[in-house]
């Protein structure tokens, strides 16, 4: 039941790479295909905050000349790429979805983008997101929501909603997002694409505008598991500019994609298919697990006893770090300064922050400021860090028994715009399955595993530190077996 005929921008990066190598297509044609798609769907989606068509065309022409002259092709060469607007791009406005950075043009490129760009990727634009990556629906963007290509009345998930929607709708072949508590995996699940959150430190955070430094990771949005491996490989590795980046060798995360899951021990997180999970999501995940078992995987249930406290710990650690990281937005050096006369610098800063930040950011800054206050630190931040240690041990124990852990990525499919906007706690619950991996720093991928009422469902596969190749191997086996048609209905109308 294929919907519409695919354009170049609908193909995977690996297939496009093969066609470029064979000389069947040019980078310029590829860029035009992506730019046409953006023109066509963007009025309905709102996935981009800044589009860069001129830059994209220039770069594509340059690349064609380079490749024609015998320059080496990489798997990123010519690939139309979107970047979440929390990754810095030299000379291209970077807003974090916030009024306070509405006019901010960074003087430098984020390392992940510098590597990708150096490998020949073509930037088509910067994508919408929840303000400073705080949110699970993309409704907390100061510049308006993003709509889900599967149902325009529904959210794409968040916070990297723009990147997820752009890739699902073919506006970009792949995209980078950031994942602090699920912000890559959850929108990937809700938009029916692959979302990979690597091990903490695997990809440099230099140029990732910080939300919660100890949890933030740069992640990959792709329409195939193989592309996720290629994209991760292009951006991973040690960076002298990030003291927390891992100085470990980068093995090709796609080296085992064909290896299958026969004999792989897969642990279903205990309780992950119970209360709070929509029946349709449960069913799709169960079916996927049956398929994995049929492919030879050994399934068992594995408990993460402290994971029930993960959400509480996360909502102390992340806002605490955010309250510190966001202190720099004061209107003194860059960004939007509140207009008018101020009696002193404190008033200027207070007005700038009062007008520049949206309600969700303020909520978290206040929460974090409180949690770090003298007399409360131990009870809140200190206690949350102890919970975090226990969760890390839970994972260590689990990975002694099984090779990977699985659960739904999100307890629900895409919800309606506005549905949870007035209920922060319900919104926070969207990330119940994704948050523990951020607290533990382990890699996890969301891979489409079926549909519920016509909306995509994602399966989350989690592995031990640096086991990206292993989780992608399991994801790839499932992807191949299910053979889902993941072209959203929006594209049929083109």
């Amino acid at each position: 039941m294929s919907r519409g005929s695919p354009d170049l921008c609908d193909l995977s990066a690996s297939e496009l790479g093969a066609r470029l190598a064979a000389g069947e297509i040019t980078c310029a044609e590829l860029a035009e295909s992506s730019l046409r798609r953006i023109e066509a769907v963007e009025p309905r989606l709102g996935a981009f905050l800044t589009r860069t068509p001129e830059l994209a065309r220039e770069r594509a022409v340059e690349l064609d000349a380079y490749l024609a002259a015998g320059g080496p092709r990489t798997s990123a060469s010519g690939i139309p790429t979107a970047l979440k607007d929390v990754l810095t791009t030299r000379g291209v406005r970077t807003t974090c979805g916030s009024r306070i950075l509405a006019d901010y043009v960074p003087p430098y490129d984020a390392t992940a983008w510098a590597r990708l760009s150096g490998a020949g990727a073509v930037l088509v634009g910067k994508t919408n997101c929840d303000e400073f990556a705080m949110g699970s629906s993309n409704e907390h963007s100061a510049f308006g929501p993003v709509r889900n290509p599967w149902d325009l009345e529904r959210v794409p998930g968040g916070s990297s909603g723009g990147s997820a929607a752009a890739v699902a709708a073919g506006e970009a072949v792949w995209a980078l997002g950031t994942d602090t508590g699920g912000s890559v995996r959850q929108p990937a699940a809700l938009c029916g694409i692959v979302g990979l959150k690597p091990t903490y430190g695997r990809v440099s955070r230099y140029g990732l505008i910080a939300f919660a430094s100890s949890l933030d990771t740069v992640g990959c949005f792709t329409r195939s598991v193989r592309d996720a491996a290629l994209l991760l490989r292009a951006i991973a590795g040690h960076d002298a500019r990030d003291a927390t980046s891992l100085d470990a060798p980068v093995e090709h995360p796609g080296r085992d994609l064909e290896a299958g899951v026969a004999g792989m021990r897969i642990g279903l997180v205990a309780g992950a298919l119970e209360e709070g999970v929509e029946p349709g999501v449960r069913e799709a995940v169960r079916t996927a697990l049956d398929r994995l078992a049929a492919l030879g995987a050994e399934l068992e249930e594995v408990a993460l006893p402290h994971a029930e406290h993960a959400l509480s710990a996360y909502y102390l650690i992340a806002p605490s770090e955010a309250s510190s990281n966001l202190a720099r937005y004061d209107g003194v050096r860059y960004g939007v300064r509140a207009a008018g006369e101020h009696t002193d610098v404190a008033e200027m800063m207070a007005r700038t922050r009062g007008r520049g930040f949206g309600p969700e950011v303020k909520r978290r800054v206040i929460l974090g400021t409180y949690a770090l206050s003298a007399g409360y630190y131990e009870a809140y931040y200190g206690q949350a860090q102890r919970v975090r240690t226990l969760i890390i041990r839970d994972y260590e124990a689990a990975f002694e028994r099984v090779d990977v852990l699985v659960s739904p990525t999100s307890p629900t499919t895409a919800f309606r715009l506005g549905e949870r906007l007035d209920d922060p706690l319900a919104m926070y619950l969207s990330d119940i399955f994704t948050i523990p991996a951020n607290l533990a720093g382990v890699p996890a991928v969301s891979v489409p595993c079926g549909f519920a009422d016509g909306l995509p469902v994602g399966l989350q596969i989690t592995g031990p530190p640096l086991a990206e190749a292993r989780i992608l191997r399991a994801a790839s086996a499932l992807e191949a077996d299910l053979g889902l048609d993941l072209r959203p209905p929006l594209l049929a109308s083109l």
Partner: protein
Amino acid sequence: MVGGPWEPVIGLECHVELNTRTKMFCSCPNRFGAEPNTDTCPVCLGHPGSLPVPNREAIARIILIGLALGSTIAARSIFHRKHYFYPDMPKNFQISQYDLPICVGGALEIDLPDGSAKRVGITRVHMEEDTGKTTHASASGRIHDAAHALVDYNRAGVPLVECVSEPDLRSPEEAGAYLRELRALLGALGVSDVRMEEGSLRCDANVSVRPVGSDELGTKIEIKNLNSVRSLERALAYEIDRQTRALEAGEVLVQETRHWDEDAGRTTVMRSKEEAFDYRYFPEPDIPPIEPDPAWIEELRARLPELPRARRDRYVREHGLRPEVARVLVADPGASDLFERTVALGAPPERAANWITQDLAALRKAGEGRVGPEHLAELIAMLDRGEITGASAKVALEEAFATGDPVPVIVERRGLAALADADALAEAVRAAIDAHPDAVERFRAGNEGVLGFLVGQVMRATGGTADPRRVADLLRERLG
């Protein structure tokens, strides 16, 4: 109310800017006096997405300081963020250290005026980053009526070491001696320019007063804006006096931070304890713990130079210098180094020390010179051999300082060789007697003092090349 006598209890918190090539968390140059906001980058301007990476050389230097003070070098220490909003702090938090500093404990031994030594405990030495500098622009130069402020971020992110002493000091003079000793130590280690006037060494003092014999500490007052040893001593004297009077008048002191006004010679309240900031310290998530390799620490220990105290003792013991001269020499690493090398060339130590701490020190105050150990050794040797006079030696030193030319070349070029020709000298003496009959008269009438005047006339006539003692003898002979 408890009466006197009272004793002050003083502890110092010193901030030292390290003279590393680059800043603490980025690769911007670390230097003083560049055009505003030219030594900056996304990291030290706190741009969104930038990350701090610790400067290994700065860590090496704070470890050197810790080793010199006998501190324990922590096997694991961590950076914390210290939060407060201020425009010259780009991130609105300072990366500093809190409960796990790099260096813990230690002591600095200081010499007291009575010749005895005192061991001042060191609480901790920790690593942090400096802030930028704010200039308030207004007609009066005062903050409250300034229309705008200008911020220079060149200093933002410069490596800063904070050294906190125990409250072991008991007088302004002891505090001054501590600060001088710390300055000498840091200078000898070569880790900082230690220029208080440029702010590369800064000092805050904590002082309280209590009845002599009491074990309890009084209410602690912190004094800021102490820009020299002299202002430290003056501010402490003022503050001890103020607190003592208040206590004697039965007043209750409150914990507060006070500002030293150098011109007015008094302290004023900056903020009370109630207004104290809640810094919301929490571990810096962007920087992994600092866990120095023990082998590296040993390497650094081997790099430790002779420390000022040991060097002073050696100068007195081996070279027979007076302790005051040894102190002046050692306080200045450049002078101390020149002294060692001059003595190594065979110059008598005391003579070398005197030339360095007096005539040469005066020249060096005005700027950089080109005098090396050869110049000094030669100068002293020529003096000793009677080849030049003291007056000529000073002229030769000045010229050597300016040109770097060898002393014999200067003596030759400027005709500074001592007047050895007896006839010429006799002629100069005769001429002086003939030209000043009044003086001759007075001398003969018993006024000995006039002889100096006549010697001066002969010296001037011979361009300083005559030996003044011989001139005096000749004059006495003639007029006797």
